[in-house]
């Protein structure tokens, strides 16, 4: 497999041409089919026409995915050196331009994610349908009799144990989905896109922080008073070591819930301690393409561990191989972080649909299933 060059920085609109061949090329024809579907379905052409909407997900018993429009604009990523609890990797601050997108009002919940996770099919380790009795070999993602596009989109192998770890009400409605890898979260987005005809993906780190700050520059989107955190976030102080239903706390100024606390959220980017040093003021939609499995970026803090400073808009989390520590298999699953009970995600839908290669790269981040 051709590896993408490390430390590649891409910016819009130039990255439309610059996108390199992504990993997992055998899935490119699938991306092409979904891209065609998205292009044909279309959507609003301008930011002014963007409205909040609820996407019904047919394969999740029509559970709704509420999406909120986030206007384009500019913001300063990172935190000032004076901010209490700030870490070195939150700087240097850069002023960035962000194109409009919709973002999930809530973290993705089990009622949506479970339908993706439990497809009832016999799957190979890489998620392709197992048609040859051998779990280790990848079969070409081609539709056969009676199968649909979402059927063949790479979905996880079934987990050995329920992944909610007895928090909440099992895979109950409105409880956040957790413990998936960034790869799995991206593939969920692909599966969502294949059935809805709208293009969904993980937010870039810049998009995530832009949406979290929602026009603010304070440590948290509600200001700088840590004593108010409990009104907005499930943290180690109030969560009793478990996640909580999404949307129970106050939203941020743009109507997004649980951006601070509850579960941490995957971003699309690979993690570099000096990511921002590689960007320039005025860069548009920068994105640190992930080329290695670890580390990647998560944001927002979580219920499991850490003080108020870990919930700040600028705080960054780097993923780690230990998140799979109790996976009994070797190779460890590419789908589950069985030792991380606090990682989840939310989706975005950009106003502008990218070209097919970029779409493919954004769903197939870093080393493919053959890592």
């Amino acid at each position, binding site marked *: 497999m051709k590896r993408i060059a490390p430390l590649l920085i891409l910016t819009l609109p130039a990255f439309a041409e610059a996108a390199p061949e992504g990993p997992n090329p055998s899935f490119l024809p699938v991306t092409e089919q979904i891209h065609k579907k998205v292009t044909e379905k279309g959507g609003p052409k301008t930011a002014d026409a963007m409205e909040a909407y609820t996407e019904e997900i047919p394969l999740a018993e029509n559970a709704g995915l509420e999406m909120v429009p986030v206007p384009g604009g500019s913001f300063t990523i990172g935190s000032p050196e004076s901010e209490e609890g700030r870490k070195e990797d939150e700087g240097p601050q850069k002023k960035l331009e962000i194109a409009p997108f919709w973002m999930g009002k809530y973290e993705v919940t089990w009622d949506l994610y479970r339908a993706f996770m439990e497809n*009832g099919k*016999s799957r190979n380790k890489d998620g392709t349908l197992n048609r040859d009795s051998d779990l*280790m070999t990848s079969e070409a993602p081609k539709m056969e009799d009676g199968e649909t596009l979402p059927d063949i989109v790479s979905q996880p192998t*079934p987990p050995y144990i*329920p992944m909610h770890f*007895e928090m909440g009400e099992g895979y109950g409605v409105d409880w956040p989905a957790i413990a998936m890898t960034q790869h799995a979260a991206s593939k969920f987005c692909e599966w969502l896109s294949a059935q809805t005809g709208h293009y969904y993906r993980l937010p870039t780190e810049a998009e995530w922080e832009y949406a979290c700050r929602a026009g603010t520059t304070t440590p948290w989107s509600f200001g700088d008073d840590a004593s108010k955190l409990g009104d907005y976030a499930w943290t180690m102080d109030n969560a009793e*070591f478990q996640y909580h239903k999404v949307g129970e706390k106050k939203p941020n100024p743009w109507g997004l819930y649980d951006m601070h606390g509850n579960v941490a959220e995957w971003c699309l980017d690979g993690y570099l301690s000096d990511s921002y040093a590689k960007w320039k003021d005025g860069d548009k939609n920068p994105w640190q393409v992930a080329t290695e499995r670890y580390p990647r970026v998560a944001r927002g803090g979580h219920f499991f*561990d850490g003080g108020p400073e870990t919930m700040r808009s600028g705080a960054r989390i780097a993923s780690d191989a230990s998140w799979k520590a109790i996976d009994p298999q*070797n190779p460890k699953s590419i789908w589950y972080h069985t030792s991380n009970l606090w990682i989840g995600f939310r989706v975005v839908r950009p106003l502008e649909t990218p070209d097919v290669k970029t779409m493919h790269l954004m769903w197939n981040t870093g080393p493919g299933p053959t890592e």
Partner: protein
Amino acid sequence: MNIDAFNRRKFLGGTAATTAAIGFPSILRAAEDTKQIKVGLIGCGGRGTGAATQALSADPNVVLWSMGDAFKGAIEGSLKNLKNFESRSDVPASRLFAGLDAFQKVIDSGVDVVLLASPPGFRPQHLRAAIEAGVHVFAEKPMAIDIAGVKSVVESAKLAKQKNIAIQHGFCWRFAPGVRALYDKINSGDLGRVVSVYGTYMGTPPKPLQPGMTKPEGMADVEWQVRWWNNFEWLSGGPLLEQAIHTVDKVAWAMGDVAPIAAVANGGRAMRTDPGNVYDHYNIAFEYPDGVFCHVGERQFPGCHTEVIDRIFCEKGTAIAPNRPQTKGPDNKTNWMYRPTAGEEQNMYQVCHNEFFAALRKGEIINTGEYMANSTMLALLAREAAHTGKRITWDDMWKATQDQAPDSLKMDDSFPIAPVPVPGKHKLI
């Protein structure tokens, strides 16, 4: 050893005399820390390869010496996945063995320790061969899938004791620090007497055959079934043995590993329509001395409530495991919870191997064979109570002789799928 000896009726009868041949396991004669410990892997799937990773991580002077699997492709995949340990591997092609007799070749290749990770139907035979050869063993759970298999394991454990050979088990939760801390509270009597237990293993089918899926053209029955071993009782024992045995084992643990009196159970094949023959759900009541009843609920259904939880009801509160181990007081409020310091979490699979190899280094012989056999028999008691529809006692089980092994086993044998047991008709033999 002849592969036809897979039949355990013959196996048990034919080996009574072999105990005379007592060899000295090699490690015990030179326990210095730097002496190489040569490890053989038998069963090169994901779990086996994981176990090899843990063995190699447990001690700097462990080397991977030999590998065997029914299928060549599994060995190749395993080698690829162990590439981080290349410097600790000494596995020339001459010590890689494919086929149903590969286990014996691995055992005979000069190893000190074997890791047994083939489908559990093979376990008693592989365990016996290792013990006879004087090789220390790590054995994955369960230890057998039928009664003849368990009895064979008991014999092997005794033989191992005579020969000073170690047997470590893969009931992994017994090595999880938090779960250990919780069960210590139960077994030490901190929470008072255990009044009852309700344990569940309710998940989804891990590797389902698809409905209507048939054997590929040109593939023999045995090969097809071994490839899809989870779906066939003679290889996996069914989901209660293969997966939910963790929960059954924790019932035994909560009860101080005393013998039960009997079990009454239900089970069936409600959801599955594939051509395999395993049940997909069980509900069991284990009867223990002093009027204590322990319940286990098992199922592999998609789309239903899922949970894997042990609730141990005690006089002074309730203990909950295995995720986020905690105790609740009579007011149902959590009054203790296990929380490792960040960065100090320990992986239970690794703890198992760390303790095993550390003991070998010290010349201590861990022999958990009898315990492993009992926990496996407890799951079989439950399974057979469900399959027969009868109340079955612990004594009934030890008197029975059930043996699901085919009389001979070759990859290209034809081997029809046994019928699904029907309660009221199915007999415990």
